[in-house]
């Protein structure tokens, strides 16, 4: 049976992990490879690296990072953040990333999704969508870290990006992000059932039961989390043991 995936997400800036990861047992918690290896050993199913490097001329640092990671990380990993062209995407994939994630660029230029899918295959094109609940049963797409509304309705957008060739959707609830009150089950479930590609739920995971619920009621295929793993509130193994006890298939 296909396992539900647990995916830690790491923010990297100019090739270094940011957002105070608290691992006293790592020599260098700012080194993406050290952290990646730690999570691989913990049985993370995939890894997502979000490049938050602001300066355009420092962007190529991420290319070196991909090469560095690909040499020693033998589980799938995704690189997202700031990818705006097929050429950019190609640079990341040829260095050994398995998937790339598009966010704002996909909103501004949806053709980038189809261009990337045609050239590299849908399996490596993840479209990240950041949603906010804007009224009963209504979710809107926001960009720029949740600060800019786009007027796009979430379910219609998810269906559009899938039709354009997205192979997976990374759905983040901006309302829940960092809140630890649980994933937004309603929008996760709605989108999971509205598209025929896997949905990775993100934003709000803070308790073990939140993971059970996002896979159960939320129908998610994968759950992404950052701080609860980085701050060792839970270890991945604890989450997986809990899920298995609750009848949810996981890779142990």
């Amino acid at each position, binding site marked *: *049976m*296909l*396992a539900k*995936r647990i995916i830690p997400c790491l923010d990297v800036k100019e090739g270094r992990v940011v957002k105070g990861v608290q691992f006293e047992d790592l020599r260098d918690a700012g080194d993406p490879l050290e952290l990646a290896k730690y999570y*691989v050993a913990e049985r993370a*199913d995939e890894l997502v690296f979000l490049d938050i490097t602001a300066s355009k001329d420092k962007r190529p640092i991420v290319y070196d990072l991909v090469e560095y990671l*690909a*040499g*020693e990380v*033998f*589980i*799938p990993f995704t690189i997202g953040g700031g990818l705006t062209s097929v050429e950019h995407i190609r640079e990341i*994939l*040829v*260095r*050994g990333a*398995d998937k790339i994630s598009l966010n704002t660029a996909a909103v501004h230029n949806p053709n980038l999704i189809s261009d990337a899918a045609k050239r590299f*295959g849908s*399996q490596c094109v993840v479209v990240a969508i950041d949603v906010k609940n804007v009224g009963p049963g209504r979710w809107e797409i926001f960009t720029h870290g949740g600060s800019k509304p786009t007027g796009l309705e979430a379910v219609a957008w998810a269906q559009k990006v899938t039709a354009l060739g997205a*192979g*997976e959707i990374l759905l983040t609830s901006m309302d829940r992000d960092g809140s630890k009150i649980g994933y937004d089950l309603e929008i996760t479930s709605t989108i999971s059932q509205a598209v*025929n*590609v*896997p949905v990775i739920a993100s934003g709000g995971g803070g308790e073990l039961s939140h993971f059970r619920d996002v896979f159960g009621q939320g129908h998610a*295929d*994968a759950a992404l989390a950052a701080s609860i793993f980085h701050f060792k509130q839970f270890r991945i193994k604890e989450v997986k043991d809990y899920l298995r006890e609750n009848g949810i298939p996981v*890779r142990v």
Partner: protein
Amino acid sequence: MITVIDYGVGNLKSLRNALKYLSTPYAISSNPDEVARAEKLILPGVGAFGFAMQCMNEHGLAETVVECARAGTPILGICLGMQLLFTRSEEGGGCKGLDLVPGTVRRFTGALKVPHMGWNEVVQCGDAKLLANSPDSQFAYFVHSYYCVPDDPEAVAGITDYGVEFCSVVQQKNVLGAQFHPEKSQEFGLNLLKNFAEV
């Protein structure tokens, strides 16, 4: 020395990284003469079956690979590369494969999402050379929309369940295949590559 066949389809970077990590000597080649002299072959592949066969033929590699396999050279097909080993695929209205393993490649039908993507269990059957020193059941990373059905049930060396129980590891004498990506399946996948290197 393993020769990885490069016929212009897909990215070989992860496979190269895995072989390098295992300190397994390997070469990459698209040259039929070099492939013909190889001790062992890996046939990788992603994408469409018909296009991959077309590229293999254009490079003059299809015939060479068949000759090598018939002469006893160990060959490992990975993902689409495993599918290419079969007689035919339903993909794109029907395509001919290398016919090294009699059988058909079929599309997943039913309620589950296609492609089959993520970690799923591989249950070992019989004496699977590729799965030596691995637990009887292990998770591997899959990305595919079609699955292999060998005519001879004896050729099934590993089974995975995705709505249908399908052959995820094939073994017919020197012709071997894995439907999943060993280069992305953590220690289980690396062990599979190591086993192939030691076949």
